């Protein structure tokens, strides 16, 4: 199998996570302590009842089958069950409340992370953070409360054991250090084999997800034999990890059962000896074993709590990393005037890079004039789309300033800044819901039907919407999957126009439309947004030559800016583009 690039994954793991921030997480939302305290108290009562039950079990095993014993045993069992139910219900309420609160907190945090932070992570990791990982938050608190009652139970049952036979109890307690050692070893083994297994599962999943989505490519090149072979190799890797895991878990089982069997061995050997010497009643092993069962039970409980805690660490670490990440405060900064914006956008020595070593824009100074159509052109990777994101404050520049007239966008309220912009990409996400929900997405209050229809008309979408049996109330499915690509794009454009932005940014917005639709929409947009600022990124020179102002980027530098005629004279890239798309750029050519 091919080597996989793991650097991305390991980089994320290295993010530091301290105990302090782990605990700080629990101070950010109220914890229903009273539920947990009550639950711990019930646990104590439960232990007391369990001790009483043990006495009845012993009597039954001695053949004392009186009605009172049977009834007493049955009643205690049922009462115990009821108590444990109450205890669990209380802690379940507690943990569900914690989960809900922690989940809301995390979701809010994720939504307010800067875009760069979001993009750096896999969406699937964020999703599982909110859905799965955060549910572990409550287990820490639950364990705390359970530990209280388990410690009590352990002490109480040891005492009972000791009361029955001190010597034998001492022998048993001597085993505890050995128990702990074995437990530690088991923990190490488990950790390692779980990790290996998890990694092998991941590798296999990655392999198959990559190869299944490449089905067409595989078929087109008739590479089935090779695919089968590689798949079998991936399956075999997983098999090896499974075998290793299986053997390791048996070693674990061996250690664990050694622990519990040691107690049995000690009881049988020394207990029988004591009975023979008359230091314990004949049926003493019966009594002792029954009490010992309780001791073992609480010991196991304590160890399980510890294991659960270490298990949650991994999940909570990721939640912690997310919670500690930077956050945007949408309403901090100066207010922008509510009136229609009439200022130029000025970039003043702006630099920006995703990776500090490879800056995308360097020291870029250019003005996007107000009220005009500005086109930005350049090759792949020249920083066109990045520039649009910088304008809306989605990315902060590494250095330099971006000004709306006099106001530095870094110091105005992000929510007000972004509300001034409309942003259309080549592929825009839609959300599940009706067509109307999507067009009015982000609008405050009710929007009259006429306004919705007007936006749809501008985006050349009214025709297909009206042809649908349910019109604007049609449900478009998850991500709009019930619509075609072109229809989705037209809805996204309508959604942007609905917001009536002061500045409209279009990044290859027409690339997925057929030419006719593209032309119609572009004409409508220009008419309806007359006098506002429109910035267009395009590879099709037809949309470019009509612009009032053209900016040519070349590897993150400004090559030239100006109107068509100026650029014909001084931008080789611009002239090259026109030539390659069949324009005549000879002397005095008019386009």
């Amino acid at each position, binding site marked *: 199998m091919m080597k996989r690039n793991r650097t991305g994954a390991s980089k994320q793991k290295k993010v530091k996570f301290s105990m302090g921030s782990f605990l700080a997480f629990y101070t950010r939302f109220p914890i229903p302590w009273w539920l947990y305290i009550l639950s711990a108290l019930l646990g104590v009562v439960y232990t007391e009842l369990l001790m009483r039950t043990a006495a009845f079990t012993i009597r*039954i*095993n001695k053949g004392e089958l009186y009605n009172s014993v049977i009834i007493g045993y049955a009643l205690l069992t049922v009462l115990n069950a009821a108590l444990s139910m109450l205890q669990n219900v209380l802690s379940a309420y507690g943990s569900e409340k914690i989960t809900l609160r922690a989940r809301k907190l995390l979701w809010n945090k994720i939504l307010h992370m800067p875009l760069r932070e979001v993009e750096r992570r896999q969406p699937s990791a964020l999703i599982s953070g909110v859905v799965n990982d955060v549910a572990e938050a409550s287990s820490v608190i639950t364990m705390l409360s359970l530990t209280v009652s388990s410690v009590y139970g352990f002490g109480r049952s040891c005492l009972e054991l000791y009361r029955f036979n001190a010597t034998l109890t001492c022998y048993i307690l001597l085993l505890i250090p050995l128990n702990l050692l074995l437990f530690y070893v088991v923990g190490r083994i488990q950790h390692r084999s779980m990790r290996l297994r998890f990694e092998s599962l991941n590798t296999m999943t990655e392999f198959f997800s990559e190869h299944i989505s490449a089905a067409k490519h595989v078929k087109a090149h008739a590479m089935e034999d090779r695919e089968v072979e590689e798949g079998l190799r991936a399956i075999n890797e997983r098999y090896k990890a499974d075998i290793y895991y299986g053997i390791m878990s048996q070693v674990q089982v061996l250690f664990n059962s050694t622990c519990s069997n040691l107690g049995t061995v000690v009881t049988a050997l020394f207990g029988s000896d004591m009975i023979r010497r008359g230091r314990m009643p004949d049926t003493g092993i019966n009594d002792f074993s029954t009490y010992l069962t309780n001791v073992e039970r609480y010991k196991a409980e304590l160890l399980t709590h510890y294991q659960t805690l270490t298990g949650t660490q991994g999940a909570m670490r990721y939640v912690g990393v997310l919670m500690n990440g930077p956050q945007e405060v949408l309403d901090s900064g100066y207010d922008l005037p509510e009136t229609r914006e009439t200022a130029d956008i000025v970039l003043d020595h702006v630099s920006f890079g995703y990776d500090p070593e490879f800056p995308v824009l360097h020291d870029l100074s250019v003005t996007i004039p107000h009220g005009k159509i500005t086109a930005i052109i350049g090759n792949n990777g020249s920083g066109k789309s990045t520039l649009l994101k910088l304008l809306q404050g989605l990315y902060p520049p590494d250095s330099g300033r971006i000004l709306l007239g006099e106001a530095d966008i870094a110091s105005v309220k992000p929510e007000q800044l972004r509300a001034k912009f409309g942003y259309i990409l080549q592929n825009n*996400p839609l959300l599940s819901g009706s067509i109307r929900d999507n067009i009015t997405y*982000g609008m405050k209050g009710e929007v009259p039907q006429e306004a919705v229809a007007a936006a749809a008309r501008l985006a050349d979408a009214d025709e297909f919407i009206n042809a649908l049996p349910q019109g604007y109330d049609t449900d478009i499915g998850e991500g709009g999957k019930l619509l*075609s690509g072109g229809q989705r794009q037209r809805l996204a454009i309508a959604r942007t126009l609905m917001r009536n932005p002061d500045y409209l940014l279009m990044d290859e917005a027409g690339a997925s439309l057929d030419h006719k639709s593209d032309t119609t929409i572009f004409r409508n947009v220009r008419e309806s947004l007359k006098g506002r600022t429109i910035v267009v990124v395009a590879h099709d020179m037809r949309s470019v030559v009509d612009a009032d102002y053209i900016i040519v980027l070349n590897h993150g530098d400004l090559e030239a800016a100006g109107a068509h005629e100026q650029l014909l004279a001084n931008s080789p890239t611009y002239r090259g583009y026109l030539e390659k798309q069949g324009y005549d750029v000879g002397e005095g050519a008019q386009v």
Partner: protein
Amino acid sequence: MRLSEIFGNGYGSFRRFFLLLAKAKLPYLWLLGDIVASVVIIRIGVSTTEYSAELFAGNVGLTAVVLPFLFYTLLSMALGCVSGAVGALCSARIDRNLRRVLWTKIVRLPLSFYESSEPKELLSRITTDVSSISTLIMQVFLPILTGGYSAFAILGRISSYDSKLMLSLLAVLPVNLVIVFIVGRMRFGVNDLVNRRRAQLTGAVAERAGSMMLVKSTGTEGKAFTAGEQKMKGLYGAAIANNWVAQLSVPVYAIAGALEVIVIILVGRGFYADGSLSLPQWIAYYGFAIQLTSLLSSYCGYWAAFKGAQGSTDRVSRIMDLAEEAAKTGRGAENLSGDIRLEHVDFSFGEKELFRDLSITIPAGKITAIVGPSGSGKTTLINLIDRLYPLQGGSIRIGSDDVSEFALQSYRRALGYVTQESVMYAGTLRENLLQGLEREISEEELDAACAAVGILDFVRSRPEGYDVLVGEAGASLSGGQRQRFAVARALLKKPDYLLLDEATAAMDIDGKAGVWSSIRRLMAGKTVIYVAHDAQTIANADYLVVLRSGAVEAAGSREEILTSNTYCREMMEKGGEEQDDEA
């Protein structure tokens, strides 16, 4: 009528399931070993219970009771580990064998199969569904066998004390089962609700986490938060309800358990009182009876587990039932030559008819562009030429040969096809470029291919050169770079017929120009067919085919079509060649 349908289906799915197991070649010997080990452990368990009863009753002879007790206890522990290891081995082998047959099958299924199923779904066939089948075998089928034997052994032992005791115990046990079953049903329903609510939450979060750019640029963080919060509260409600049901079942089980103990004691008490049971026998009987009830209640769980796994087994076995493509029947497709002619081709996706009686000739030795509005069938046409879908009528010929006579594998290898997705696999660049090639490629040839698509500089700029890792699905490369490598890969293949589906769409203007001039140079005299919708790309064609709603609107040399066809003229307006004419 209905009933017979249900049984018919049930029969069908069982038949498929067992066929699947037969094909997967279960590790029968290991399974047998596991069963034998379990039987021995059960036998030892019976003895251990009796010895411990003796100990409880105060018979503490060292050699008569204590040592044998310890011996059996430790033996059972050791055997338990061995049996556990064998069990783990069995389930790993079952997983591996099932995955092998399943993957081999899936790879050989026709393209339409992939298009009708979600990739994520397919993935879980191989990962989770397979595991749930092995779990079913190891944790349901085998325990049913061994549990049955265990019950048999225990009952046999009790009947050796007194056969009437055994019979009366057998008579009262089923009461317990009914209670366990009812509670189990209740829990199932609520659990389902929790799962559904969780899926809703995942959906809501996923949709927004995946479109964070939209949320941020429209400043709708608050709205997104509320949408998520609502689902979180929904899940909270379901989880609480689930907890209540789960917890309420605790006392119900306890009552059932208490009743059971009373019954067991009442049954045994008479025998103990009249002396037909000794004290050790009584203790052993009591221990056995408790073991029996837990055995029987686990049988109730098996049914639920079986129902739960049915979905998985059904999905996997259904895939195994599908027909594969015949990759190797037919003659080899060497030295293809001549025009490609589609003659009276019919094709539809399910109900939706796309082509009806479509006839086109694509001239050999030329570059032909297929153009038309979206949904007109351009990509499908190329797919049909590559035989990715079977025709529903008519034929496709290359020269005088009907292409359906060629062996599928050999035919597809003879054509070069660059798909829209420009697929890359995790691994090195070299592995990706050489993928699917049957001949040796020299370093110079690699360089030449990369230079042709204008990406040699990029390769040179990496210290690892061709050994640079490209990440999962080529994630470390941009869309334009992936497309260039995909074209380079096709050129390395040196096909006589090259199919390109929007293969340069993500490249910038300079990139497109460079790649197309290379294609013209390297494919001179050979046949190139491509789908495109931008003016710059279309300008490279010698011949144009205009499709509209599955029919040929126009076909002919580029000059001719560009002047005569409205769709093309509009498309090329201001960007096309007429500009030159006017200027």
